[in-house]
């Protein structure tokens, strides 16, 4: 809407007296069209550290586009059900912090609410695709012996990285000592299983949190979701479930990379 049209609209509304054109809506309209330049003020940053969306006007405009990569329609509950994403573990192993994602308990087995899973999975896929489109490195991590080769293969196919073997303590925090050189760290880590074979939290989760690397975690009903940034409550043990999730993450990486290739 140009300024002349806006002015005529104000005049019209003012004349009819139906609704006074408040300063608040005018400010909202202005912020939608003109973006602030440069760094946000200290005050905005303070608000933003609690409510990140406050900083939205300061980030790149393409990030505001809802579903930029068309990933939302890829995820549907029927396919998730076919892939057995809804099965959790036995009720006795349930973690207190995973109760929010459950639909209920069927004869002693936890069942995930796939509507909740769908929302979280879409958010995680969007995040991964955007990070790839900005030239980020994704590191896929798993401890599952059944699916480790699939994870490695998928990461190689999309030009990303995977770590599915024994995690040496300090791989991220003591990189220079272990690898003998400064190495670029991943920009996002995707945990396809967040527990080790001993049912303990994967040591890389804490290391990623220390180095402020955001993490996407597939969390089963017996996992501890703390320290993980983006949670996807889902079955992480069935090969079918992992294959389904890998297919989606692969698609997200490919679409992010394609978008980047088009921009450059």
């Amino acid at each position, binding site marked *: 809407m140009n300024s002349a049209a806006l002015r005529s609209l104000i005049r019209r509304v003012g004349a009819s007296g139906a609704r006074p054109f408040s300063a608040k809506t005018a400010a909202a309209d202005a912020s939608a069209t003109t973006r602030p330049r440069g760094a946000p003020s200290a005050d905005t*940053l303070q608000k933003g*550290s609690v409510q*990140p969306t406050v900083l939205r006007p300061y980030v790149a405009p393409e990030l505001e586009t809802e579903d930029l990569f068309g990933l939302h329609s890829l995820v549907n509950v029927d396919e998730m059900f076919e892939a057995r994403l809804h099965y959790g573990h036995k009720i006795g192993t349930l973690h207190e912090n*995973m*109760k929010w994602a459950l639909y209920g*308990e069927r004869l002693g087995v936890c069942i995930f609410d796939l509507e909740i899973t769908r929302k979280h999975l879409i958010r995680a896929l969007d995040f991964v695709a955007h990070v790839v489109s900005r030239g980020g490195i994704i590191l896929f991590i798993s401890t599952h012996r059944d699916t480790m080769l699939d994870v490695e293969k998928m990461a190689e196919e999309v030009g990303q990285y995977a770590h599915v073997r024994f995690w040496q303590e300090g791989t991220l925090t003591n990189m220079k000592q272990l690898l003998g050189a400064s190495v670029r760290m991943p920009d996002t880590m995707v945990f396809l299983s967040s527990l080790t074979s001993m049912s303990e939290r994967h040591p890389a989760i804490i290391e990623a949190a*220390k180095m*402020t690397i955001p993490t996407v975690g597939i969390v089963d009903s017996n996992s501890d979701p703390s320290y993980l*940034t983006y*949670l996807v409550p889902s079955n992480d043990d069935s090969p079918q479930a992992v294959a389904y999730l890998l297919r989606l993450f692969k698609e997200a990486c490919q679409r992010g990379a394609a978008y980047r290739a088009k921009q450059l």
Partner: protein
Amino acid sequence: MSSFVTRSERAGNIFFRITALIRSGQLQWADRPAWYDVYVAHPPLTPHDWNVQLPKYNEPVKKIFYEEDIVRAQFYKNHRNVGHVSMDKEGDSISQQFINEYQALSKEEPNLPMEEMFAKTEKRLEDVGLYLRRQPKKESTEETKKASTEESNTSGNQ
């Protein structure tokens, strides 16, 4: 970037710590990490501080039961061995076929007692060609037991 950041992961979540670095001037806004903008536009749907308690913490989990579970339980009491359930095969299992027939019957004749409903449903399935073997009744088992003990007694005497 990582040289400035505090490695105490419990001090705050990753976004909080990076924003704090920018606020204090240790990190320039232009040097923020690649994921920072994406996080702002698509923040996580759940809080992720290390000690956060997510919804339904310490609440009991809802049990999932359906109305037909009563019929299913009674069906498996009557017929213990109805074969394996193949998860790859399309179509209903035998117990599900029974339940479907039972529900159809209960709509037609809502006032029948449960035992008669079971007998009628079995008969209907037999008409279609699905024969269900019943568990031997308790009385008959006692009779056979008696018979067998008598037999053994007689054989012992001989």
